[in-house]
């Protein structure tokens, strides 16, 4: 085996540039997959570390089934359960510290989201151990005081005596820190504790708690006690802590899918380039392979040799990709981190590479290389020893195989099914299959298309154009390989271009539609459930009373559960909401839907949720509430911008208060009267908002602009990645073109001998390259447009409603790139062809 490795290395070394470039392609794909997957858990880790409530060592933890709060009376029920020794209730919620008031962190950012626990100073220490590090514990009768966890104290340099301002339903409240306690072992979350009544007032949840913790009488069966307590409480309760921040999880998973789609396409591209290279290698080395066979190498040995070569490249490429991916994640983290913490008030840690990420990246990197090398290797095994003896006339093995084309067509059909399935994973698989199918079908179409483009080329290059066209028509198979490198590259570019354009315009439409008010009082986290503290009715009243404000509407939020999906339940005023803001409907009539909300238990579901649960307008759903199950009718399907990524239903604020006991406003929107003075109104609003640091005042225009800029930046990043994706296809094009020249050394020699000038030979090669890239571009455009269209459709099916936008600029770019690449890729081989030593060329063979 070592001999094969040596032979493989020699061959690879003999073509250093090509080896490096192909290896780079694999490195590139692995880098994206590894880097992106390393970044996503960093985001998740940010939640987990900062928001996860420390798992406590109590015997029994009970929370509301829907993650919403419930009346304190439930505590008495638990206390009355036989076997319960001590029980204590608390109200636990993430809270965004208003940036203006937040302590500075060592890294220069400000403290974002913390976990606020309202506890009963008397009973809490009975069920949990609080170990004082400095200062004291909470005492009965305490008002606005806080005890903070040691990790937070250290991070934000807080100590007893310091003050911390937290937002409240009535504006803001100032707290004095009286103590620091050691967290549970291993706990790193940023927790603060305050007396329960204070927390209830702060969060506008008087008389309500969301967690009960208890210890059982020593010696009793903890499990039986748990069951008994749950049974006595009735429906609407569950065992175990609330997963704080799980709303955000869904958004992150969505991002992960998108990243992986991108990574898979990139790797498919890398695999294709390896495939392409090795097909070329096998053609190029047919005589060597035949020779090996003649002197006694078995088929298996030949296959092994080619696979060894691809494996070597796979291993090196994957290793390089892992390193690159690590730095990519670091770099992306550095770019995205600030935007992220700005939008969500959570700080992003370094990349996290889980074992599964390694397995995925290494498995895909090496796996793709091996799979891509397999076909060429097997075809190398089919080379007979006689090939070593025949003069190289490679055409026989490159005839367009109808069977292969039929297989390609079948692949395309399967791909279409995958793309139409509405499942993003199947869709991305479908995208890969589609490209593979395109490559297989290609050769059959080369001849007619080459004819058309050839005639165009003749206008420019006259004689050489005709020769170039003839060369292509003679070897449609190889021409198709070369062109397919281009096709794949451009198809991916155009598809992603179409997708991002559609995504961008779709998002912009959502922004305009649902955030269309003149003024917005925005909470600090863009994910509404991500720790924002709502305001009581006073804030909306104050805004309404500002002279010049024509209309005010507010948005409230509670967590509900339908089936086994946690859904954000958003309370809106069916009267004013459609006038000031609005939803983008994809089913149902807006007017009827809002009217239905006002009349009774009806809801509007957003796209994600309705796609997940396959909802129909008119269907009845059961919403689990602390008051028990309630039946709601689906009045329509529509969505707003902020909640587009999370399963959400919209109900009337009246029903939200009745069923889920939530009355705080988390987002306020207001319209100005036509004759009002903007400056005057704004000044008045500023004054009001100053009292409510949980909110910041934005003019609608400003805010839409801000979002658009943010998305614009993300899109530019995506475009940059896409351009880097194009580089490997240039490599592939150059590769096959180089081989073209090599194989025709003698033909070129003859041309020169009968009187072609160097320039003419050069022009012939460039003409051929242009033809090939025109072919590739045409296929790539068609394939990419279609693929993009279907991918947008697949996104639509997941509930992200948007219409397909034709990427005009992308097409212009693609055509330009295609032609420029065609010329660039031809320059090197053309030079080589022109420099060819005439005699050597004729002696060749």
């Amino acid at each position: 085996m070592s001999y094969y490795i040596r032979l493989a290395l020699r061959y690879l070394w003999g073509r250093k540039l090509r080896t490096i470039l192909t290896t780079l392609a694999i490195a590139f794909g692995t880098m994206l997959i590894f880097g992106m997957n390393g970044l996503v858990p960093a985001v998740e880790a940010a939640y987990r570390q900062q928001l996860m409530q420390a798992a406590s060592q109590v015997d029994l933890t009970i929370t509301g089934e829907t993650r919403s709060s419930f009346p304190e009376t439930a505590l008495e029920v638990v206390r009355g359960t036989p076997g319960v020794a001590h029980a204590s209730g608390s109200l636990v919620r993430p809270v965004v510290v208003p940036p203006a008031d937040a302590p500075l962190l060592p890294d220069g950012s400000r403290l974002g989201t913390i976990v606020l626990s309202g506890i009963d100073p008397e009973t809490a220490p009975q069920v949990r151990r609080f170990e004082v590090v400095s200062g004291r514990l909470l005492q009965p009768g305490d008002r606005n005081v806080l005890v903070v966890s040691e990790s937070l104290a250290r991070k934000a340099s807080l100590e007893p005596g310091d003050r911390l301002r937290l937002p409240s339903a009535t504006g803001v409240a100032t707290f004095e820190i009286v103590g620091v306690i050691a967290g549970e072992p291993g706990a790193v979350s940023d927790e603060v504790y305050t007396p329960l009544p204070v927390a209830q007032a702060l969060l506008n949840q008087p008389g309500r708690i969301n967690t009960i913790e208890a210890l059982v009488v020593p010696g009793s069966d903890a499990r039986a006690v748990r069951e008994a307590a749950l049974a006595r409480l009735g429906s609407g309760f569950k065992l175990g802590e609330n997963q704080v921040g799980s709303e955000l999880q869904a958004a992150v998973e969505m991002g992960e899918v998108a990243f992986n789609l991108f990574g898979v396409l990139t790797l498919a591209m890398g695999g294709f380039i390896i495939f392409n290279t090795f097909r070329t290698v096998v053609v190029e080395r047919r005589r060597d392979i035949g020779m090996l066979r003649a002197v006694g190498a078995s088929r298996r040995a030949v296959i092994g040799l080619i696979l060894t070569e691809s494996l070597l490249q796979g291993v090196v490429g994957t290793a390089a990709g892992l390193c690159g991916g690590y730095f990519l994640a670091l770099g992306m983290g550095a770019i995205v981190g600030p935007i992220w913490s700005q939008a969500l008030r959570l700080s992003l840690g370094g990349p996290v590479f889980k074992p599964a990420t390694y397995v995925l990246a290494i498995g895909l990197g090496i796996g793709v290389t091996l799979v891509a090398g397999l076909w060429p290797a097997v075809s190398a095994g089919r080379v007979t020893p006689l090939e070593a003896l025949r003069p190289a006339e490679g055409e026989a093995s490159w005839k367009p195989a109808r069977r292969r084309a039929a297989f390609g067509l079948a692949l395309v059909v399967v791909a279409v099914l995958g793309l139409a399935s509405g499942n993003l994973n199947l869709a991305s698989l479908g995208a890969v299959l589609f490209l593979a199918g395109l490559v297989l079908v290609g050769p059959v179409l080369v001849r007619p298309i080459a004819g058309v483009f050839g005639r165009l080329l003749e206008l420019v290059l006259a004689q050489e154009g005709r020769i170039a066209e003839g060369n292509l028509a003679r070897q449609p198979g190889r021409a198709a390989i070369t062109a397919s490198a281009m096709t794949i590259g451009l198809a991916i570019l155009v598809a992603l271009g179409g997708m991002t354009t559609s995504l961008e315009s779709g998002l912009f439409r959502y922004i305009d539609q649902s955030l269309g008010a003149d003024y917005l009082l925005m909470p600090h986290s863009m994910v509404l459930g991500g720790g924002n503290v709502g305001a009581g009715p006073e804030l909306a009243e104050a805004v309404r009373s500002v002279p010049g404000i024509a209309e005010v509407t507010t948005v409230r939020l509670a967590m509900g559960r339908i089936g086994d999906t946690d859904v954000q339940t958003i309370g809106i005023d069916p009267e004013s909401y459609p006038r000031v803001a609005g939803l983008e409907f994809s089913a149902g009539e807006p007017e009827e839907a809002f009217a239905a909300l006002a009349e009774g238990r009806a809801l509007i579901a957003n796209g994600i949720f309705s796609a997940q649960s396959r909802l129909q307008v008119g269907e009845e759903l059961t919403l689990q509430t602390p008051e028990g199950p309630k039946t709601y009718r689906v009045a329509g399907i529509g969505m707003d911008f902020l909640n587009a990524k999370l399963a959400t239903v919209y109900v009337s604020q009246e029903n939200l208060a009745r069923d889920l006991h939530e009355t705080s406003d988390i987002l306020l929107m207001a319209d100005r009267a036509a004759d009002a003075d903007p400056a005057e109104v704004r000044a008045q609003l500023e004054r009001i908002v100053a009292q409510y640091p949980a909110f910041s005042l934005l003019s609608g225009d400003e805010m839409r602009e801000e979002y658009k800029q943010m998305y614009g930046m993300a899109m530019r990043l995506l475009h940059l990645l896409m351009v880097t994706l194009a580089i490997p296809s240039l490599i592939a094009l150059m590769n096959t073109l180089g081989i073209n020249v090599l194989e025709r050394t003698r033909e070129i020699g003859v041309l020169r001998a009968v009187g072609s000038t160097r320039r003419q030979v050069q022009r012939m090669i460039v003409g051929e390259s242009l033809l090939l890239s025109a072919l590739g571009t045409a296929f790539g455009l068609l394939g990419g447009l279609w693929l993009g269209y279907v991918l947008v459709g697949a996104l639509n099916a997941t509930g992200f409603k948007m219409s397909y936008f034709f990427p005009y600029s992308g097409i212009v770019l693609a055509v330009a790139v295609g032609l420029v690449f065609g010329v660039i890729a031809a320059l090197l081989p053309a030079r080589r062809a022109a420099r060819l030593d005439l005699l050597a060329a004729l002696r060749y063979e």
Partner: protein
Amino acid sequence: MAIVETKELTKVYGRGDAAVTALRKVDLRVEPGEFVAVMGPSGCGKSTLLHLVGGLDRPTSGRVALNGQDLSELSDDALTRLRRREIGFVFQFYNLIPVLKAAENVALPLVLDGVSPRKAQSQAQLWLERVGLSDRTDHRPDELSGGQQQRVAIARALASEPALILADEPTGNLDSRAGDEIATLLRRVVDEWKRTVLMVTHDPRIAAYADRIIFLKDGTVVDEARLVGGNDGAEKLVRQRMEDL
């Protein structure tokens, strides 16, 4: 027992209208220790005959036996093993692996046969010495002259100690001096190292080194001559016969 024996060996390329009969019922015997040359006009089927005898291709009908073993009964893998151990090939275009050094090229059949690299290497060294290239072992093929490359190819053909060497126009690409060197070397292969050589050539001067010459025309054996005595007389005789054809 004859080392090579063919019975009614026939090879037809293509089918239908395009069918070309390259060999027509050829019966041929080569005894161990013989140096046999095959001559004939271009396209008469010389290479085809050599390929069939070497198991590189399969006949349309008839059979080839090496040391009594019928090749048509062998699987592809068994044929491969046979080529590795029993036959050495020398071709017109040297056909060395360009990325391997001379010694590595010579060691190739041994390595393919599972001989330890060290042993294969020393064996290769030995054969390179015997063909007079002990000072060129670390050179790549493109750093060697045509005659030198052909000597490396002969060393490679001999390295696995095969009983039979098949050579297709081994001097076809060389000038007359280098051609003579190669022919002399092949003569030594028979006389000194006791191998059997079956060689195809155009060149009467080269054919004159053989013990026996078989004349082929349009795919059939038309004549045969046993050579005795000096080279000069033999060459004249061969020229004469060729012109008769």
